[in-house]
Each structure stands twice: as C-alpha cells, then as structure tokens.
C-alpha cells in the first residue's frame, strides 16, 4: 500500500504477469521450439519454429484422447443441460408436495463428488449392462459420461434464474392454448439463454477436468480421455520436454478458449456460485 509511484505499480503488474502468465508462455515456446533444451528445462523463446512435437504427441495417443474427451464433453454437456433445465423448470415454475425435499436432496449430492464415491461407483458401473452391446458401463463411453450428468450446480443456477422469469409470459401462452412442454421449450428456455451459457461454461470445465473417473473407467488406451493420456506421456532425454508439453498444451487450450469466449458469463456464474451458494 506504500507504493505510491506509477512505476512501482507497473512493476507489480509485471511481477504478477510473470508469475501467473509467463509459465504458460514457456509451454508454448518449448512446444514449438525446434531446438530442445536439456531435460527439465523450458524455453523462453522458441529456437526455430517446428510442429514436430505436436505431431509426435498426436501420434502417441493424444489424437485418440482428444477425440474421446470431445465426445465425452459434447454428449455429457448436452445431457447435463437438458436434464438440469427440465428439473429446474419443475422446481421453479410448479408448486407441488415434496419440492423442498427434492431441492435439498439435489444440493446434498454436491457432497458426493466422484473422488469420494469413486470406488463403489466403479463397481456399480460394472453391474449396469448396456443395451445392444451387452457389456457393462466399465470401459465404455457410457461409463465416462453418465456419472457426470446429474450435477447440482446447473440445477441450482437455472432454478434461481427461472424463478425470476415473469409469470405473465407463461400465462399469455397458456391462454393461446400452449401445452406445458411447449411453454418450457419455446418460452422459458429461450429467456434463460444467459444462465444456460453460464452453466455450459462451468459444465465444460468440470467435464474436461475429469481425471479419476476416466482413470477408473477406461481399461484400454482406446477409451483413455485426454487427461489420462497426458499423464501417461514421459519426457525423454532425446526429445526433452517438448512432446510431453505438447500434450499438456492441447489439454489446456480448450479451457482457455471457452473462458476467453464466454468470460462475462463465467464471472457472473462464479460470483453467484460462491457468494450465494
């Protein structure tokens, strides 16, 4: 607080950027550098540009991992948002016996994160058989995706938002003879677009971040998600850190892109989640 000069403030800015952003830059520099430094060292600037590290990582399982992660996030997020908004519609717009208990039960599942119930969850997945293939959910996309669908946060955020949608909108449609689902789909949901966006950002990061669940569920490299692939790559004396960090970079980039694209939605959700939740 004693720093009064502008120069001092800018020095602190520089320090903050150095600590929080520069490490990320060194990853980029190392990955695209033609000349690799010694094991453990990173580059400050790339020495000669190359895509060799990325393409090598790509062939060492990153391609498959990325595909799996994208499938999991696309299907998982769609299901998560659908299921959450349907439930939120009932909780916010309908009055019925047991609504309070249901909301409480949903919030209580916040206390059952994957880490804590992982082991019995794995056994439960082994008991559920899939239609068509007949195999269990272990080592399947179903096992990677379905446990992530029921999440309390989007239900909570969407319920809060839907409660504030004026009732008149709904009544006008009802007079025009619209059914319940029509009202949900055509009237309430479009109004909730900002809240859905917030939930989508958080859901994306939550699903993309999963590590323990795929570690348990995936039993073969074919089903590994990107997080599992990244931890299986080793740095080597000849290649330096380049190939390993290329995989790290590919894992980190989607989160950054989603954040930069939807920053406003993200910060609003963060605040409502931590201050009121």
């Amino acid at each position, binding site marked *: 607080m004693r720093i009064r000069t502008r120069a001092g403030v800018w020095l602190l800015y520089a320090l*903050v950027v150095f600590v929080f952003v520069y490490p*990320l830059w060194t990853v980029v520099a190392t990955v695209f550098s033609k000349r690799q430094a010694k094991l*453990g060292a990173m580059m400050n600037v790339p020495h000669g540009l190359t895509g060799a590290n990325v393409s090598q990582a790509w062939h060492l399982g990153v391609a498959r991992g990325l595909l799996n992660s994208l499938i999991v996030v696309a299907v998982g997020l769609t299901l998560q948002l659908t*299921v959450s908004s349907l*439930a939120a519609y009932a909780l916010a717009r309908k009055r019925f016996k047991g609504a309070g208990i*249901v909301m409480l039960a949903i919030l209580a*599942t916040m206390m059952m994160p994957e880490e804590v119930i992982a082991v019995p969850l794995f056994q439960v997945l082994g008991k559920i058989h899939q239609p068509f293939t007949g195999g269990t959910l272990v080592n399947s996309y179903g096992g990677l995706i379905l446990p992530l669908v029921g999440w309390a946060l989007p239900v909570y955020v969407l319920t809060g938002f839907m409660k504030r949608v004026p009732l008149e909108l709904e009544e006008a449609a009802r007079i025009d003879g619209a059914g319940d689902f029509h009202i949900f789909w055509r009237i309430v949901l479009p109004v909730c677009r900002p809240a859905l966006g917030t939930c989508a950002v958080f859901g994306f990061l939550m699903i993309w971040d999963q590590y323990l669940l795929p570690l348990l569920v995936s039993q073969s490299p074919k089903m590994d998600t990107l997080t599992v692939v*990244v931890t299986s790559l080793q740095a080597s004396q000849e290649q330096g850190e380049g190939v390993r960090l290329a995989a790290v970079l590919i894992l980190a980039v989607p989160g950054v892109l989603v954040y*930069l694209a939807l920053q406003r939605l993200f910060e609003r959700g*963060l605040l409502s989640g931590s201050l009121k939740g």
Partner: protein
Amino acid sequence: MTTETTPTPVAADSVLSGRHRPGGPAVKPFRRRLGPWLYLAPLLLFIGVFKVWPTVWGVYLSFFHVRPYLGNEYVGTANYAKLFSDPDLRSAVVHTLFDAVFAVSGSIFVGFWLAVLLQGPARHVRILRTAVFLPTVIAMVAAAELWTTLLYPSPYGSVNSLLGKAGIGPEPFFNSPHSALASVILMQIWKNAPYDMVIFVAGLASIDREMYEACQLDGATRWQRLRFVTLPSLRPITTIVLVLGIIRGLRVFTEIWVSTNGGPAGSSESVVTFLYRQFSQNNDTGYAAAIGTALLVVTMVLTCLMLLWRRRKDI
C-alpha cells in the same frame, strides 16, 4: 387440453396459472399432479443411479472383505477398526488437513492482494485480470504437469535456474519428502488465487464508497482505511471462501496423484490418493469403501455445521 374434466371456472383458473390456488379444488387432476415429477424424473434417475446407489453400495462394501471371484466376506466393523489404527492413513489425514488449510488460506491471501492491485473498471486492469485468471481455467492435470516441469529438480529446471541466479538451490521440490507437499501447496495457490481474486474484486466493488469518503474526512491513512473499512467488509465472503475451500480440499486427489503420486515415501499422500491406492494397488476394496464412507460423513457434518452457522449469522 390437459384436463378433460368439466371446465368449471376454478379449474380453468388453475390451468391458466399452472398453480394450485387456495380455494381451488382440493384434488388436482392426476396428470397435473404428475407433471412436475415427469420433468424431474431424468435428473432424479441420474442422481439415483450414479450418486445414491454408489453411496449406499459404498457403505455396504465397507463391512466386507471384497474378494473378486471368491465372493465377499462379511467382516463387521473390521475395516473401520483398521481405519482408526492405520498410521499411514493417519499421516494422510494430517497431510490433507495441512494442505487444505495452507493452500486455501494462501490462495485467499494472494487473491486478496491481486484484487487490491487489479481492482477497478479501467481497461488495462481488466485485461490484466483476464490474463492472470488463465491458470484457473486450465485443467488440473495440465497445471500439475506444467508445475512438475517448472519445478524440475535439476539446475536446468525453470524455477531452479531462476533461484540459481540468486545463488540459491537447486531445490528438489517435488522430489524430497521435506518439500513435496509444500510444492503441491505452491501449485494450488498459483491455480486458485486468481479465482479468489475475482470474488474479492466483486467484494471490493460492493463496499460503500461513502465509507471511504468518511475515512478521508477523518484523515485516516491508507493502512487504516484497509484495516478498518476494507477488511471488515470482506470478512463474510472470506469466511465462506475459506470454509468451502477447506471442505473441498479434503478430497484433493488429481494434483497430488499427477505431481508426486503421494511420494516421496508417502510424504504427500492425501486421504483420497491413499483410498485410491488401497483399491488399485492393494486390492483392498472394502477398506477403500470404509475410508470413502468416513470422508463422506466428515464432509456432510462439516457442511451442515457451516449451513447452520451461516443461517445463524445470516450471511
């Protein structure tokens, strides 16, 4: 459309609003009563199958010695007895608590100063805030892999080469039992402090400007203004972030498993990495289930206490 009964005025009214009004018919048509549950059914199905069933199954398993192909053997409370007498688990609990308390309070401390430095609506601080926030949105696995490289224990490692210029090191960081857990905490602060920063920036913006003006009139110094206006105004938010963070910190897994794998020599083992090791390496599923159940109970008790306390304090 939804009601085929005779359209009495009251029924029409309840169709219009979609709600049961006092003075309306006591018995609503079946489909109307069913309606909300149809919308809730998918979510309740997913929660029931993938949250409640595993939780109940975990409690059940915790009373068994789980043997694949041979059938489970009922062992009563043996797993829980082991849980209370296992020195390895006890040290994992100590590491977890140590990690949760220091990582969360460290993040709050750094996040607060970041917020003080980068608060306000000016364009350049907004850009800086966006940049500083980036560690928060990259996947935990990516952050942990990045930090194992940054803290590489040879003189060539990024951080060690910096320290070398100042005449320190090279430090072993993740590679020594004395510094492994501290290095994990350092990484967690790097990843979580920007998150707390955003919360504090909003908190700072919500403080009444008149309080600062009154301070100025009274001739308060900057330090006094911080001490007697800013900090007390932020106390409720800080407490919530602290408590929620510590509860969340009890289940730390990914960052430790990826960066140190609980080592060296178990010096950074947390409760959940220990649990996972019992399952994946020692094949002691019953014991793992007992640890998970105990952790769940502790989490629930702490959360309920926090909710009660928040209701009492009304924050």
